[in-house]
């Protein structure tokens, strides 16, 4: 099993639980009509409610409720037909109400699971709950020498807090879990999962124990905003805890911060300093109630989720599990692949996406969305291979050109004259020329040096600038040399 830490005193197991804060994809905020668009000027998307003006009251955004239900269904979780909004009370300048409206004892979504693929194969990770809550605003401490500025644009934006069980055992598993969760939410359209814009943030709970022992004391690393940082934070924190325990010290239950510049975690506040949030049901809101019918309607409209899609790719398309996993992880990729493979060779299409397209995207550091090659275009290229117009080898060059310029496969092939040469007369001419230039090698071949056949093929291809139909070249060469 991976993810174990070999210490001085034995082998340690890392235990990880994640609290993922996912911004609900929604035009307006959880309890107000203000916009949620990212990147607006500070304090331009703030309603009277978001600024907690006196006498303002929250009204639940039905769309956000729907989104939470969808997400719950996406992880096969219990949907609670009655849930309660509570106030989590604490003072902070970017928390205008002096409390965050959240869900405490009765969340909208109960237990669920999702399946990840980790170092040890498939694994189920339990999800404890999902609750809806408001985001706070943003404090800016770098705008003025002695003042802090507040931007309330985010204040009141709907978040889903998705709490896992302590089921992960390595940083790799934690990363796989976040990717899977993000993938499901993207399929559902409930969270865009954009970690740079803060749409997805993580609190990471880490503890260590000797295998078979009780759970150790955990530390919570707050607000980690990339998958890579989550992994770094876990690795650092687990080692820190092991080192402490092995010197005979104990772990203090505390909240820690991850410093991306050093890759280390440091103490933020101890358990003793923890806030008493004085949770109580928000008297401005009635309990959130809806019918099973409402849930069933939403369920009926759910799109095909990554696990189902993967199974279909394997069973119906004959793809390998690994390829299928790669293709379904991102909704956009799966859609691209499905459009591309429609009416074409499924495996060939998969290879082109995974090897050529992903290769080129990785190399140029861009995403599928920025790619100049769309599914229709790539499909035309594959069609040119299938009907023998170009060779696979040429196709790769054409693809390179398409990727750079965004041109269509057909026009690149035509304008560069890259059509495959399948005319026997033309090919015979090329072969004759090659053979006459290499008399000595022909002699050697005829004396038994079979390996030279490949050399002749290569020379012919080179002379044709790669356009010769390799299959025909082989046949014709054999006739000439053995004839």
């Amino acid at each position, binding site marked *: 099993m991976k993810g174990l830490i070999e210490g001085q005193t034995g082998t340690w197991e890392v235990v990880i639980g994640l609290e993922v804060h996912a911004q609900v994809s929604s035009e307006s905020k959880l309890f107000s009509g203000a916009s949620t668009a990212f990147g607006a000027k500070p304090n331009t998307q703030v309603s*009277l409610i978001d600024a907690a*003006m*006196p006498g303002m009251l929250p009204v639940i955004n039905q769309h956000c409720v729907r989104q939470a239900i969808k997400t719950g269904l996406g992880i096969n979780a219990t949907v609670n037909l009655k849930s309660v909004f509570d106030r989590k009370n604490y003072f902070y*300048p970017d928390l205008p109400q002096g409390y965050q409206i959240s869900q405490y004892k009765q969340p909208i979504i109960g237990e669920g699971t999702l399946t990840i693929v980790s170092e040890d194969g498939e694994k189920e990770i339990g999800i404890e709950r999902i609750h809806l809550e408001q985001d706070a605003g943003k404090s800016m401490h770098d705008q003025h020498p002695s003042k802090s500025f507040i931007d309330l644009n985010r204040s009141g934006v709907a978040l889903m807090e998705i709490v896992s069980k302590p089921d992960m055992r390595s940083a790799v598993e934690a990363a796989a879990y976040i990717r899977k969760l993000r993938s499901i939410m993207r399929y559902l359209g409930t969270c865009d999962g954009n970690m740079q814009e803060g749409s997805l943030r993580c609190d990471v709970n880490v503890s260590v124990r000797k295998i078979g022992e009780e759970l150790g004391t955990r530390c919570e690393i707050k607000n980690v905003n990339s998958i890579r940082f989550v992994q770094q934070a876990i690795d650092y924190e687990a080692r820190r805890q092991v080192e402490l325990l092995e010197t005979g010290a104990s772990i203090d239950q505390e909240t820690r911060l991850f410093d991306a510049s050093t890759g280390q975690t440091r103490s933020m506040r101890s358990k003793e300093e923890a806030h008493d949030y004085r949770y109580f049901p928000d008297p401005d*809101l009635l309990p959130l109630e809806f019918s099973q019918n409402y849930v069933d309607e939403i369920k009926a409209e759910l799109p095909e989720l990554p696990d189902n899609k993967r199974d279909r790719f394997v069973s119906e398309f004959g793809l390998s599990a690994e390829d299928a996993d790669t293709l379904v992880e991102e909704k956009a990729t799966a859609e691209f692949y499905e459009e591309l493979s429609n009416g074409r060779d499924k495996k060939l299409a998969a290879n082109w996406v995974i090897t050529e397209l992903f290769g080129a995207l990785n190399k140029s550091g861009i995403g599928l969305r920025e790619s100049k090659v769309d599914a229709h275009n790539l499909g035309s290229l594959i069609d040119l291979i299938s009907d023998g117009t170009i060779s696979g080898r040429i196709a790769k060059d054409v693809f390179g050109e398409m990727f750079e310029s965004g041109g269509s496969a057909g026009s690149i092939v035509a304008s560069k004259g890259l059509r495959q040469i399948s005319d026997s007369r033309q090919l015979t001419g090329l072969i004759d020329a090659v053979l006459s230039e290499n008399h000595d090698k022909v002699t050697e071949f005829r004396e038994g040096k079979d390996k030279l056949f490949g050399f002749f093929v290569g020379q012919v291809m080179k002379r044709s600038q790669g356009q010769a139909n390799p299959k025909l070249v082989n046949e014709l060469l054999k006739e000439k040399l053995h004839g």
Partner: protein
Amino acid sequence: MSNILDLNLAGLQKAIRDKNLSAKEITEAYLQAIEQNYQSNCFISVTEEKAIQMAKESDKRIERGEALALDGIPIGVKDLFCTSGVRTTAGSNILSNFVPQYESTVTEQLWRDGAIMLGKCNMDEFAMGSANTTSYFGSVENPWTTRAKFGKKLVPGGSSGGSAAAVSGGLAVAATGSDTGGSIRQPASFCGIVGMKPTYGRCSRWGMVAFASSLDQAGPLTRTVQDAAILLKSMAGYDPKDSTSANVSVPNFELALNGDIRGLRVGVPREYKREETPPEIENLWQKGIDILKKAGAVISDVSLPHTKYALPTYYIIAPAEASSNLARYDGVRYGLRAEQAELQDMYQRTRDEGFGDEVKRRILIGTYVLSAGYYDAYYLKAQRVRALIKQDFDNVFENVDVLLTPTAPSEAFAIGENDDDPIKMYLNDIFTVPTSLAGLPAISIPGSLSDTGLPLGLQVVGKMFDEESVLKVGDILESGVEFTLQEVGKQ
């Protein structure tokens, strides 16, 4: 013009209809009365210009024959209803400079119907108090002070003390108030006027500075039951901006006042008979029973066994909600800010200077009862008791239509009298708090004068959203007791 101030709301409506009075004449008469009595401190802000402007608009509509229901009716607004462009303080230093850019739903509806705003009425700070002595803007004098048989200045009750005193003293024909545990009914009783707390959810809380969200309810303070019915019609109504607002239709409450209560079942809760209650209040209660009996109602003795727990329950739930509701007054975005170099110091100084003692006391109580380790013993238990109290009412309302009780356990007391004894002050709400906890509609009707010559009120409590029965019974009581305001404040 001297008789303008003697007309009640319905009387003014008639005078306007008959073209005997213009909105401007009425409004000017009231503005003049306010100016002459400004030492009574009923108003925190007088909106003279706005009032005249609104009156002119009323007169234009009246002239065009397009008069609205409340055209020409000048009212006071308790200073916790946010009024656009008009300072709204909630009686607190922390909001002493706060001018909202929005209008509360309740006042919006009143202006929609043509009512005229005279100004913002004084109140206990954040509606926390029973004597209007916790206001940052000072105490309000009960107009009955001059009638009382002793020389001290009297409180008007609270927290809607400015509203009640203004209506009683002829400084407004009617006023809005808010009632969390008795804040409309008790001052109405102390000032000899009618005060009604409608069913929780009947009036929108949007734009009303919150004290305790699950209890706060707006309502009218008026000179007669009919006036209360008219004003409530405009104040009430479903508001999608308030999630706790009830989506029920608003009846024409005035039509309920048909004088017919034959066969109506009236319960008299035995737990409201307390040894400490002065005989004059007991006598008034009996007088009320006799009036209703005579009018054909069926009187029965009923029991609300959890009544004694109501006050302690209220003083856990209301402060708990308040401690959270008042967290927004932090000096960051609006209101008072005591500038300090460090954030914590700014918070502390702002809230220390901004809040008075009673508000601080309740924030402390509320914070305590919600704290980890105390939540179950206090807040959770209080919620359970609240459910039992509500159940008491549900049970008795299976057999009776309304309940009759005294409104307050005493007459108005002198300013400063109970200030050093919070518990004694809290006892003022002993008869009004249970109905608040249950969310029921209730009205206070002036019933008689005490031995010292001060008004005493009777309370009628009804079923959820049955304001009509409450008003109807109130109307009968009003006719029966022959109580009159006419000479108040004029001696």
